[in-house]
């Protein structure tokens, strides 16, 4: 069976990933911010893992939706990192993490407005020019609308289309947002520029209030999210799929079960299609 599913290279499971006996991903994803400028023990571990697996990068600090200027100096470091590790996909979040000249280290929701949209489209183009490659932007989970003047679907899909960037489609985030903001996940998916999807995220979440789900990356993937993934993969070309898990690593075998489930669905839907990346 062809393998599509990769896993985040987290320190808690670094050795298991390097050993490749219990968890057997087809690639690893890392946040460049967590590894740039780093030497010593963890640099060795990273190099070990990168010598075994293809690497994709999922950035944290680009803050593409921020009112602040882009940190070009840091982006230069990202560029070098991407080159050093021969990274095939560099993705980021359609959100902002920097505001008032301060990093906030989490993903804040952008107002779905025309001026924000234009601002972001322009920034994506400049970032892609600078890097000399397309980036993939992810639809993020959000817990409140902020001064919205259009729908999330219009905002996301127009940004991807008008900027010419790729899309990182997080299927769990679609599920979470559909629940939190009371819309239909499948009709949202149909409105996305699915021909631009270059990468997929799958993850678990946690319902913490009757009307709120938080995208935690700490739980198992639930069946309705697998169903949505099945639905999605029938409509797109083969791409790498990442299992996002940031903590709760007490049962590593279960992670392999999730990777295998993802692979099974991909294989079923992409049986005669050529695997495009990684």
């Amino acid at each position, binding site marked *: 069976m062809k393998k599509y599913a990769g896993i985040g290279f987290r320190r808690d499971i670094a050795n298991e990933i390097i050993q490749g006996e219990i968890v057997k991903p087809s690639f690893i994803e890392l946040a460049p911010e967590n590894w740039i*400028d*780093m*030497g010593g023990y963890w640099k060795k571990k990273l190099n070990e893992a990168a010598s075994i697996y293809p690497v994709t990068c999922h950035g944290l600090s680009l803050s593409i939706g921020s009112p602040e200027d882009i940190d070009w100096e840091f982006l230069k470091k990202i560029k070098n990192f991407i080159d050093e590790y021969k990274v095939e996909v560099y993705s980021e979040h359609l959100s902002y993490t920097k505001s*008032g000249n301060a990093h906030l280290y989490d993903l804040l929701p952008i107002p779905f407005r025309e001026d924000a949209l234009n601002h972001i489209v322009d920034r994506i183009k400049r970032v892609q020019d600078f890097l000399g490659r397309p980036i993939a932007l992810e639809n993020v989970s959000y817990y409140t609308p902020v*001064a919205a003047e259009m729908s999330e679907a219009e905002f996301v899909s127009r940004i991807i289309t008008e900027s010419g960037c790729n899309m990182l489609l997080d299927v769990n985030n679609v599920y979470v947002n559909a629940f939190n903001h009371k819309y239909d996940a499948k009709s949202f998916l149909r409105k996305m520029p699915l021909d631009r999807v270059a990468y997929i995220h799958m993850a678990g979440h946690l319902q913490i209030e009757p009307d709120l789900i938080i995208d935690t990356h700490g739980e198992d993937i639930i069946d309705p999210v697998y169903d949505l993934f099945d639905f999605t993969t029938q409509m797109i070309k083969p791409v790498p799929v990442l299992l996002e898990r940031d903590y709760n690593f007490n049962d590593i075998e279960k992670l392999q079960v999730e990777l295998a489930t993802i692979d099974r669905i991909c294989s079923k839907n992409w049986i005669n299609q050529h695997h495009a990346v990684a």
Partner: protein
Amino acid sequence: MLLPETRHIQTKLGDYCKTGILPDIPGINKKHVKHYRRLVFNVVKNNLFQAFPIVIDVIGKVKFVQLIDEFFSRHHAQTSQIWKLPGEFYEYAKTSDWVEKYNMPWLIDLLLLEWIEIKVHTMPDRTAPETQIQGDLFTSHLVINPDFEIIKLSYPVHLDPVRAAEQKKGDYFVLAFRNRDTGAVRFLNLSVLHAFLIENMVKEKHSLEKILQNSIDRFSIEDITQLKTAIKIFIKDLMDQRFILGFLKQ
């Protein structure tokens, strides 16, 4: 292209995550927006809790969270790499009034000690010249492990619990270095003379003999033979601990 109004709204949400004071933002869900403050603050809190376990042991979690709250609401975090944030916390602490306000004279030293462990553990690898086993301790060129820092403390928080350290104000030097094979960080207490020797071995790239000559003048040392014996023990110990990697390859 971004309208001032949108910029203002975005900044308000960002400020809320920093301070926890909820402003009026159009169209938000007031109940759910609270999770952003919670999530942002938890990320920062978890990072600093991991970085400063000894400080937390001494002052307690409640007080430490209070310090984090002040730091995060007033400081503009500049690093895009959160694992470097403890360094900004330490720098902020130096400019804060915490030492006087809470009567913790050793606080800055203890924060520095814990931050240096992270810094040395993670700092980029530096290259060291090739070494050989044969050489003379005093006349050959010794190669030093370049992944190190020497810090100066006013209280010996690396030797004693803070309550005892508080009584021993003085000049203390600590060497923190990273083992090149395991990546583990070791701390060594240094005398002023030892700190001077190491700094000069790095800076001047002279043999120990020559550096000793300089230190004799500087520290007005009279008994050179005794000094040499003591230094020999010190250098051999540094070799055993893999801080001195060997003799420069000829």
